[in-house]
């Protein structure tokens, strides 16, 4: 008799869960393991100085999004001072493993998991390409083709087509983040600088020792940007300008990374703008932009894909406001 009661209780619990699920938006988690290969973690094992910096970068975006959400992007010191310095402290702690981003941004993850999973997949591609570049693999090109094929097999993959970033930066709410929080925005762009500038440097260095030596000035420049964020930049760093050989050899990968970084900027703007005042509106816009303009599954209908013959970004960066000084020094 007790067994029946318990089974009934179990059934009611499932029913409640089902009804609740029917009333609320249900999202699948859809986590994928990274592409398994012998070169996995080559960067962590062979070039720890650089790997540590990327672990620090992982903290930055999540911490920003969580703080923008929780403060309603109303409190400038909370973002520019407190949240940015939290990120710098984490970077200074020299983390040897990447942080648990769900612990950093639990609210944001619950708001827009699909967008986060899109980032996670693209960041795994970033990591894989670094590992390949640092590994002693002879057939690096073949390995990159394989990881790109693996990446593109995900329904969360970002399009490998070139997108018109200037137009993607012209939504009604665009630029709201960089205008309100210029220091943190420049810090984010400094991360993106580091993420793409290392490819050609690593490729040009013939062995591990020279790779270690080659990234030293890049890390100095990057830390200079963290200390004094390059607020004079008017657009995010582009892969083809910082690693032109990599972009020429793997244009699809370069496009994915440029698009990934542009998507980061769009989401920062959505979380900042007053034009989308509620969390639900922000979530809807994040998903609309992600699914219609960034996911590869939307390539056929995506109005932002640059078709043959249309202008590209080449030559657009470093983008300095008229009258401003400085630029992407060090690369």
């Amino acid at each position, binding site marked *: 008799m007790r*067994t029946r009661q*318990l*089974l009934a209780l*179990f059934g009611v*619990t*499932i029913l409640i*869960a089902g009804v*609740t*699920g029917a009333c*609320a*938006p*249900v*999202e*699948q*988690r*859809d*986590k*994928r*393991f990274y592409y*398994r290969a012998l070169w996995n*973690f080559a960067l*962590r094992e062979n070039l720890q100085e650089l790997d540590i910096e990327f672990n620090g970068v992982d903290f930055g975006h999540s*911490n920003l999004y969580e703080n923008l959400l929780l403060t309603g992007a109303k409190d400038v010191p909370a973002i520019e001072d407190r949240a940015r310095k*939290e990120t710098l*402290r*984490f970077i200074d*702690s020299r*983390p040897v*493993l990447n*942080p*648990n981003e*769900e*612990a*950093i941004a*639990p*609210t944001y*993850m*619950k*708001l827009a*998991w699909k967008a986060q999973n899109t980032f996670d997949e693209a960041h795994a591609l970033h990591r894989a390409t670094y590992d390949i570049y640092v590994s002693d693999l002879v057939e690096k090109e073949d390995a990159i083709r394989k990881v790109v094929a693996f990446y593109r097999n995900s329904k969360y993959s970002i399009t490998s087509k070139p997108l018109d970033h200037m137009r993607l930066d012209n939504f009604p709410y665009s630029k709201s983040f960089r205008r309100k929080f210029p220091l943190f925005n420049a810090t984010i762009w400094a991360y993106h600088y580091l993420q793409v500038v290392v490819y050609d440097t690593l490729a040009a260095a013939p062995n591990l020792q020279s790779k270690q030596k080659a990234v030293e000035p890049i890390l100095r420049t990057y830390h200079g940007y963290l200390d004094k964020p390059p607020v004079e930049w008017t657009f995010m760093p582009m892969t083809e300008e910082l690693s032109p050989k990599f972009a020429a050899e793997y244009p699809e990968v370069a496009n994915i990374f440029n698009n990934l970084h542009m998507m980061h900027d769009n989401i920062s703007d959505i979380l900042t703008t007053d034009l989308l005042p509620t*969390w639900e509106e922000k979530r809807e816009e994040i998903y609309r932009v992600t699914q219609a303009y960034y996911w590869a599954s939307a390539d056929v209908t995506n109005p932002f894909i640059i078709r043959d013959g249309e202008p590209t970004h080449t030559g657009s960066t470093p983008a300095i406001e008229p009258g401003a000084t400085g630029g992407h020094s060090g690369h």
Partner: protein
Amino acid sequence: MKRSTARIAILLLLMVPTVAWALDHDNLDPNRPIAIEDAYVVPKGEIGVEGGILFSDRKQGKSRFVFQPQLIIGAFDNTQLELSSDVQTDPRSVVGDDKSGNLTIGALYNLNTETLSLPAFAARVQLGFPTGVNAKGVDTALTGVMTRSFGQWRTHVNVGYTFLGSPQGLERSGAYRVVAAVSYPLGYPTSFRDTIIANAFTRQSDLVGQRNPTGIGIGLRHQVSSRVVVDVGIGSELIGPADRSVFFSTIGLSVGF
């Protein structure tokens, strides 16, 4: 004698570097280190090998060591398959569904990720085959899992029921169990290598006419490297039958590849 065994077990735990995080940072697996799991599965494509040694100091009867090997495979979207076993010292005295040497296969399906309005839910099905000592019949276990986060704190509830295929003597034909737990990333926001977990549990006794073994546990999971997690845990069945575990401790290792 028993007290000295318990002291040795504690000493061993303290000597080993505190370690453990599941194969995935935010993925709690049952018994690694304590009896709770979250509603999330390992990522599709991941293979994990886990193992642990549990020391159980019982109020009545011999103390036991239990070896708990487990294989986890992220076989499909949002689904993990598992193969596990418990190998125990003093196997002939074991009653209930966890007979020493039984082979268990299971599947955990994550129904959804957590959103602002909905916790994460998962469902588990397990079949225990009578490959062990004194085992008869195929045991079936159904478990519902829920995870809800509050800031960095995450709460978990597991509710399950086990049907014994062929109960022997005074064994129950079925028994429920309920576990509630909280977990927290120790070291946040400057370190993300440790997760602390505390649970409270109750379950129907293995034999009819006995009180529910009910107790608490606490554990730590520490990520050693990109692929390796170590865990330690201790706990006690505060109330329950005479042969309950008044103190248990565990240490384990998880490797993902």
